[in-house]
């Protein structure tokens, strides 16, 4: 890495804003933090006195807990604001919420929100750092980074790998961040799924669209299944989950076309038997729980890099 490199981002709103050098630096930092979570006393004083607010307008178990665990292991004070009982339910606008939170002087706000661009809107109206924990169908950068870390650990590299992402690309912020992140780091990204769930222009994010799952998975090093949401049947984007499982689900037969040592990933929560065969989810190629572990390390790194400066 260039000796002059400095991480200079105040906010983490999307992988589109980060350079390959930024991403590599975050992954290195995260890797160095993994050891903290292995200790008996899983806490370092690095962010003592810092205030982190988890502002989650959408339900979340994994991501919110992961951020909270990450912040606490760095000794930051954390506060959780959920949707029910929050002032938005009472009609407060996002910008007013931001101004009110700003008045309490937090150092970092972690936001999840159903609307694309909401994290940026918050960042424009608050002096604190903002981490996007998922905004609509836009990006989920910490998930993209933890997926990159997981692949790097398992494969020793990212550059030159073939990554297949299968499923609802249109509505998946995870897919968007992963397509951007993997292609920035030199991997080849292929996507496939029902054509109704492949958004126009996805190639410009760095993905190649394959008409069939088998083509996307052929010789892949990494196969990522995305969660398919039941309500897509009503839109109408899908005839049935059964048909989805039959033609787009990741099964042992599909995996036979991938490299022998290909790993299987899923951002969770899994619809077992729909997008991913249960035997694969629990099998030796699955790195799904590594993803969760790495999520804490990546989020510790992000909190450290945007707040631990001085």
């Amino acid at each position, binding site marked *: 890495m260039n000796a002059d490199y400095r991480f200079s981002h105040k906010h983490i709103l999307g992988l*589109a804003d980060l350079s390959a050098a930024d991403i590599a630096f975050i992954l290195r930092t995260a890797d160095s933090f993994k050891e903290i979570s292995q200790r008996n006393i899983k806490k370092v004083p690095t962010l003592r006195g810092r205030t982190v607010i988890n502002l989650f307008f959408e339900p979340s178990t994994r991501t919110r807990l992961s951020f909270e665990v990450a912040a606490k292991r760095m000794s930051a004070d954390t506060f959780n604001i959920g949707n029910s009982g929050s002032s938005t339910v009472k009609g407060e*606008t*996002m*910008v007013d919420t931001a101004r009110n939170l700003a008045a309490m002087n937090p150092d970092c706000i972690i936001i999840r*929100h159903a*609307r*694309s*661009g*909401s994290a*940026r*809107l918050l960042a424009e109206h608050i002096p604190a750092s903002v981490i996007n924990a998922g*905004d*609509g*169908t*836009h*990006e989920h950068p910490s998930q993209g980074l933890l997926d990159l870390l997981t692949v790097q650990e398992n494969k020793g590299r990212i550059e030159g790998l073939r990554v297949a992402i299968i499923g609802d690309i*249109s509505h998946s*912020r995870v897919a*968007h961040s992963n397509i951007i992140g993997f292609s920035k780091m030199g991997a080849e990204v292929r996507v496939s799924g029902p054509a109704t769930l492949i*958004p*126009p*222009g*996805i*190639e*410009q*994010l760095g993905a190649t669209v394959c008409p069939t799952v088998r083509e996307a998975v052929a010789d892949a090093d990494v196969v990522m299944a995305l969660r398919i949401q039941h309500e897509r049947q009503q839109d109408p984007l899908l005839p049935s989950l059964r048909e989805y499982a039959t033609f787009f689900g990741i099964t042992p037969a599909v995996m036979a076309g991938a490299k022998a040592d290909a790993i299987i990933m899923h951002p969770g929560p899994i619809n077992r038997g729909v997008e991913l065969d249960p035997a694969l989810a629990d099998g030796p190629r699955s790195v799904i729980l590594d993803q969760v572990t790495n999520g804490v390390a990546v989020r510790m790194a992000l909190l450290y890099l945007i707040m631990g400066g001085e």
Partner: protein
Amino acid sequence: MEARCLINGRLIDPRRGLDGLGGVWLEEGRIKAVFAGPAPAAIPAGVPRIDLGGRWLVPGLIDIHVHLREPGDEHKETIASGALAAAAGGFTAVACMPNTRPVNDCEAVTALIMARAQGAATRIYPVGAISRGSDGESLAPFGEMRRGGAVAVSDDGRPVGNSQLMRRALEYAGNHDLLVISHPEESSLSHHGAMNEGALATRLGLRGIPRVAEEIMVYRDLALAEYTGRPIHIAHVSTREAVDLIRRAKARGGRVTAETAPHYFTLTEEAVGDYDTRAKMNPPLRTADDLAAIRQGLADGTLDAIATDHAPHSALEKEVEFDLAANGIIGLETSVPLTLALVREGVISPARMIELLAANPARILGVSGGTLQEEAPADLTVIDPELSFTYQAETVVSKSRNSPFLGWDLQGRAVLTILAGRATFEAPGQTLWR
């Protein structure tokens, strides 16, 4: 009322075939004489001369598509404030769309608008709704609205989804000499969309509005107009294929007119940038290819008018998540400078510009004006095509500030607007009107 004589202007009146040095003599609010060259000796020496120094002297501009928000949303705009904004943009008449609260779907609302328009800085031509409440279900009382002052009908802002209703509207409008204005949008395709569908929408994670949502409805309404033998006007054309459809309908002799707005020939979807709600409107900003086709359509006569679709919104509706932000931008005060850019780039001539902003709008709506006619009300606009200014929020006359052009350095503007012989606007720093 005193008389005045505007001299030494570049007189542009395409309907009369005028484009050259000349002037206009005003008296008692009417045009007494239009003359080429220097002022005739017959004009008494006592009539004050206003030397335009070569600035353009054109028929009062007419905007056939604005939203004045009154009644119901007076925090965004009122008839009075919208008319002042119009005058500041060089307009002497505007047609206001019916999507007020309540909707202008009956004579009482039309009459209220006409009453509030008394003494406004421009003439106000109300457009009535096609359907009651613009709900797309049953016909609004066209005859009564016409009696109240309506000049056209439209459910603008909402498409007429039911093809039978649109057909009946075209047929029935003929009984009352009302123009039907189509807001072309197939809502099953555009529903929940926030910007043009494509790679940029995908990158931003925003639901797209595909171009075909517009084109299907343009085609349907052209087909219905042809089938019923009735004229139709297509509002805010934004795509290449929509321009082509209109071009073909005209070539077949169809009684079709169409408008576009300055933002569609000036901006592309890139203006959305990182969720800038000032670039959110319906139809959405499209691509460079569409922009080129719109310019071509303006140049070759396919598109008949430039209308602003002036749509004021307050920060309440715009300082929110992009998905939730209201559609529309203000446009009255930037229409002339943005259109002048087309003239400078050689896309259209000055005469064509005045056709698009005055002559054709009057013809489309069937109202007076759009040309300089002796004995007609003296509605005139003086344009300085060179005058440069920065469009700034503090100087906006409209009650709202939702414009993507704020901060732009613009060249050329209306410097003097005259309605029935009275100055309704003079640009800051100008001292023409004495």
